[in-house]
């Protein structure tokens, strides 16, 4: 038992526990905080798996940017206490049964494939940021440009969708224009 494996188990365990807490929380902010914990734990997992660049991005982008974005939106929505109550009322034990069974089946299948599909071997060597960068701006250049386009589209889409249009209430079109 080497240290890397130990760290892997600990951080993996933290990630799983944090994720379970995310999906069982009634309070949205609490759930998001657990989500950050889960992401940070995963960043450690990435690191021990020999992907330091990905680990850094996980922390910066996921934990730093995306979750913060969601928190901002939740703040904008200005949710009250009753949102939590409502969440509690929706999340009855009964709703777990069906999804649980489905996911259990899927899990079993994935485990079956993994354990019989010849996935073995160890992660031996780290792949550093320079290699990733060379690869990114070499063979994957087109894909990088497409990603840029996707982000552009996301920006435009978010702006367009998020814009609060001024309500123009015409006395005849009241029903259609909202």
């Amino acid at each position, binding site marked *: 038992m080497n240290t890397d494996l130990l760290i892997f188990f600990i951080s993996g365990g933290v990630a799983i526990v944090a994720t379970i807490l995310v999906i069982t929380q009634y309070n949205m902010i609490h759930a998001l905080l657990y989500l950050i914990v889960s992401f940070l734990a995963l960043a450690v997992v990435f690191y021990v798996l020999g992907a330091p660049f990905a680990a850094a991005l996980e922390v910066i982008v996921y934990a730093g940017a995306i979750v913060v974005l969601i928190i901002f939106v939740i703040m904008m929505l200005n949710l009250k206490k009753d949102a939590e109550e409502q969440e509690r009322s929706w999340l009855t034990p009964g709703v777990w049964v069906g999804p649980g069974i489905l996911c259990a089946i*899927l899990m079993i*299948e994935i485990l079956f494939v993994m354990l019989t599909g010849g996935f073995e071997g160890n992660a031996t060597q780290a792949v550093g940021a320079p290699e990733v960068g060379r690869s990114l701006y070499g063979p994957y250049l087109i894909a990088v440009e497409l990603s840029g386009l996707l982000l552009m589209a996301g920006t435009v889409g978010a702006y367009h969708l998020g814009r609060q249009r001024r309500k123009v209430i015409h006395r005849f079109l009241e029903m259609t224009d909202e």
Partner: protein
Amino acid sequence: MSTIEYLWLVPFLPLLGALLLIVVGRSMSKAAIAWIGAGSVVLSALVVIVIGIGFLSSPGVYEISVWQWFVVGNLNPSIELHLDALSLIFIFVITFVGFLIHVYSVEFMREDSGYARFFACLNLFVCSMLLLVLAGNLVLLYLGWEGVGLCSYLLIGFWYEDPKNGYAARKAFIITRVGDTAMLIGLFLLFSTFSTLDIETILSAAPTEWEQGSSIATLAALLLLGGAVGKSAQLPLQNWLPDAMAGPTPVSALIHAATMVTAGVYLIARMYVVFELSPVAMTTVGVVGAVTLLIAGFSAITQTDLKRVLAYSTISQIGYMFLALGVGAWSAAIFHFFTHAFFKALLFLCAGVIIEALHHEHDIFRMGGLRKQLPFVFVAFFAGAASLAALPLVTSGFYSKDMILWYAWAGEKGNGLLYAAGLVGALVTALYTARLVIVTFFGSARTPVSKKPGWHMTLPLGVLAVLSITTGFLEVPHNFWHGQLISGFLSDVLPATTIQPGSEAYEWLLQLVAVMATLVGVFIGYYIYMATPGLHEIVKMKMAPLHGLMQAGWGFDALYDLLFVRPVTWMARANRGDIIDGIYTGIAWVTMAANRAFAMTQNGVMRWYVLGIVVGALLIITLGIFV
């Protein structure tokens, strides 16, 4: 020849009158309408007289082509008028009786709001009827045939506010349509054989094209007979005529007594060659006539409505004409048509006066005693009735009916049964005529007279009364003296009837028998209705079932209702939801149901969509792993 060139004026003048009245009749004064309506027919009658004089000076067959109508393949009918002795007699009767009835209508319809409509229809009728009898080809004849049917429909339903009148009009139209369809098929048959519908060509080609007694000739003749029985209200299509009395009385007089209903007689006489080729068809014509004249005559005895008595009497008299046609006595049929047109029109016009005078009272048993109150009408009516009953020697009906009876017995195609039917018919005719006259004009007055007819009405009565008596002398029996004007006149067109050898000796005897039948009939009528008061009620009680049957026209209406109307209405009701349509509705329903079922998956609840994606992914992965 020169005057005959103007033959086209004869149908054209009434057509012009009709068009004028249709277009601008609403805005005209009643006087102007009367002048146009009656005037066009009067002018037409004058033209006919001029043409008739020209024709008599040089008899023959004239063809006047007005213009080419249309050309479709072999079929190229033209508007072609054909004048010979037969059509001359018809156009004379149509225009002359038509003119008298138009004059009568001027006063009769004065109070009516549909004055212009009435005269427009009546003029259009005269035009159609003239086209029918003048047509040189069967297409034009069919145009006229349908034209008179249309006018008949319009005029029966003239007082359309009452649904009963509309019903009677539809009944007349639909029943005659049955016959018209048969006739149309007959025309197709003729066209497929001769490649033309020109009457002269068909008549000259038929004997060479078809063998005597061949089945196709029989079929053609029977199909034409179908059209004739429809239009002329003969068995089995006779039951529309009594209901047709719903129209105004001048209409009944002109269309449903004098002219249109005799179109069938005209058709058979015109196409006589085709009928002579088929003994079966001839016999059928005779039997139809004989049976019709009997059942209609018996029905007439029991009717209480003045106009219905006359309607049944008309059916019966046309039955005589068919009987004559059936035994090949062509000129006798035309002669009877000629006399019948006058006396029946007269009777109807008198009936109109009576009904008007008694506040639209139709029931003869509520009349009575009119002899003193309407003496002129009584005289006129009596003249017509005498002619109808065929009182011997002085009336026209006697001569024409006697001629038919004589040929029914002695003609080559005649036989004893047809003669017997005619004889019984004569007795019955005399009986119901006597009843009509006695009940209406004698006894005590039951309804007061409120209105006396003016000269517009009495003049036609007078003229027709004179004609009813005198026209008989145009053709008197061989054994009286040689005065056979009608059959001589028609000899160019219609063949003379051959007599069974050795029967001339019986002619006196037969005439005597016919006279006896008439007198017995009149006496029975007198005995029941006049000599012993109350006897007719007793007779009616004793024979109640038979009386009811006869009053209902032998139940033909009920029979047809049961045979045709009920099944059709039943089918219509059964098919109310449209069974065939149900198939398509079913397809649509299945599609809609499928649509609803699939729409349920698109319920807008996002969790269901996620679930769908998960289940689908699970399915695909499972398949990928284990299969």
